[in-house]
């Protein structure tokens, strides 16, 4: 498949009073046309910063690209001038923000907010733009768009506002849509509607989506591929099945074990001990080593490179080194691996659900 975006060796730091925060420490990934890539990880892992770097939305006064490239259609986005970037932002790459309550302008009608990118990026008259805006609202499933276009954000519910934010993001048929926790603030029923809407729209206009979330249920629902971030790096990347049924990195194990599944029996919920690393002075080895039960001596000395698990699946953990000891993953993970052909715990088709 065709690559639409390539992020190569991206390193980015923030300059703060306390010193240099190395928020992204060498991130590599590709985004293919028409796919949904989910980025998961806890707060502070660098997932939002990565996407804001792609959109160039980080304050220039305090952030600095240290290294690497973000290639979009052959252009390196980190090198563009602000003017050039403005032509891409909102047109070719657009973003759905986390909080629909604060990402709309309370003093503008929603019609004007949807028309803003259309008037900016397309050569259309105001009345045509209004027509497009009405169509967009209909597309995202808002009833009576002709009337509601004149209303202000406070006259809408949370789910409706998120639909409006999506309509704005889709206004110019973007090639890449970045969704930063688009459903975290919403109820399960509204969340389900929004996810279905995004999937439908993706089919209709063939957009690639980068989906950031910490809800693994949502990831299982929307993603084609998953990247797991920790301490400013991607620690594991693979197809959704590979990450959920054959995870290799201890951090991915921890994440998957800390979600109660609806059919697990009463037992203590697994909680990853400790706190995320301080990126003011990142650890020199594997950033997760201090919180991991599976840390090896070398984890404290040297950061692990990516080891190949399959053509699509890579994980940065020394456990995959040929000389590493064979370890037993947590029970919940072994249960998952049993279902996956290609994992060492695969039990064949007996008793499987498919």
């Amino acid at each position, binding site marked *: 498949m065709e690559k639409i975006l390539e992020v190569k060796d991206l390193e980015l730091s923030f300059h703060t009073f306390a010193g240099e925060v190395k928020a992204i420490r060498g991130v590599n990934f590709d985004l293919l046309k028409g796919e949904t890539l989910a980025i998961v990880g806890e707060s502070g892992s660098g997932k939002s910063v990565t996407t804001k770097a792609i959109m160039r939305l980080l304050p220039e006064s305090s952030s600095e690209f240290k290294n690497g490239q973000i290639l979009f259609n052959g252009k390196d986005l980190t090198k563009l001038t602000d003017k050039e970037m403005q032509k891409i932002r909102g047109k070719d790459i657009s973003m759905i923000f986390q909080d629909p309550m604060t990402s709309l302008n309370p003093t503008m009608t929603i019609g004007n907010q949807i028309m803003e990118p259309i008037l900016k990026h397309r050569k259309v008259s105001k009345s045509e733009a209004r027509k497009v805006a009405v169509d967009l609202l209909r597309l995202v499933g808002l009833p009576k768009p002709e009337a509601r276009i004149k209303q202000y954000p406070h006259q809408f519910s949370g789910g409706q506002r998120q639909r409006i934010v999506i309509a704005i993001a889709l206004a110019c048929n973007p090639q890449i849509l970045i969704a930063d926790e688009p459903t975290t603030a919403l*109820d*399960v*029923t509204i969340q389900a509607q929004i996810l279905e809407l995004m999937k439908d729209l993706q089919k209709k206009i063939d957009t690639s989506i980068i989906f950031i979330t910490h809800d*693994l249920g949502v990831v299982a629902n929307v993603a084609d591929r998953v990247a797991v971030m920790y301490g400013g790096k991607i620690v594991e990347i693979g197809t959704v099945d590979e990450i959920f049924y054959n995870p290799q990195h201890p951090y991915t194990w921890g994440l998957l074990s*800390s979600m109660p599944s609806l059919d697990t029996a009463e037992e203590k*919920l697994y909680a990853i001990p400790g706190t995320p690393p301080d990126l003011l002075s990142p650890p020199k080895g594997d950033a997760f080593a201090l919180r991991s039960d599976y840390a090896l001596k070398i984890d404290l000395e040297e950061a692990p490179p990516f080891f190949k698990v399959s053509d699509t699946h890579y994980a940065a953990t020394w456990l995959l080194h040929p000389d590493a000891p064979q370890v037993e993953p947590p029970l919940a993970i072994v249960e998952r691996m049993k279902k996956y052909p290609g994992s060492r715990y695969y039990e064949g088709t007996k008793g499987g659900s498919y």
Partner: protein
Amino acid sequence: MAEKLLEIRNLKQYFNQGKPNEVRAVDDVSFDIYKGETLGLVGESGCGKSTTGRTIIRLYNATDGQVIYDGVDVHDKKSKKDLKTFNRKMQMIFQDPYASLNPRMKVLDIIAEGLDIHGLVKNPKERKERVVELLETVGLNREHADRYAHEFSGGQRQRLGIARALAVEPEFIIADEPISALDVSIQAQVVNLLKELQEEKGLTYLFIAHDLSMVKYISDRIGVMYFGKLVELAPAEDLYNNPLHPYTQSLLSAIPLPDPNYERTRVRKSYDPSVHNYQDGEEIAMREITPGHFVFCSEKESESLKAISNSRL
């Protein structure tokens, strides 16, 4: 069955009563909470679950109905002194750990506020020691006492909220979406802490949430609310394995699980209140379908629900 700690009888909470914009946030809800159990309360935003919690603890005065705690009606007019003893028994943990801690107070004073009001400590030294003890109970330490709320992460702040609730040694805690604002891995830490505390201190919880998988994990029984009404109340396992009210079924079918194969086949049901097709004069009430499993339905429906749940067994 264990002893009843709390009885909620026909609780009603109407806002703007009698005006055109009247909102029936809680509309004739009755249930019991037993000593030592965790009752989960779920539903979409605006269904009245938080209002129910806040009315129980008297943050709102109920429009009608009773909240009977240990045999005493909470909403009866009471002397200041009675109220004070009651307030010690019931505490609340709030949803937003960013908004529910005063940014201008030190942690020491935030947690000790309840101690001061109820006169539980005699001198500043004892006050400090008690606060440190509470901080250690929730997994923080002595140094944290002299900091301000903004110096803490979300998970740590929620721990502070829990420490504050525990300060007056309550019997019953209302936790209003205590983990919604937190990361998955931190959610697990807070839920484990709540469970440990419950075992240690014999607490009773009303756990309000919209994350159904966590609710199932922590709750003994679960109530489902829809538009101010309680529509189903059942033991946690039962509710998930044998959901009877169509709204519960729709709610359960909307939860995404961390399992791609399940997600590929999950079909979402939507709930249309007109399926009930209630006739005039039909009495719709909570009816027991199987032992301990109540559904808000008509007499006729209850018969067919009984048949359905028998066939599922």
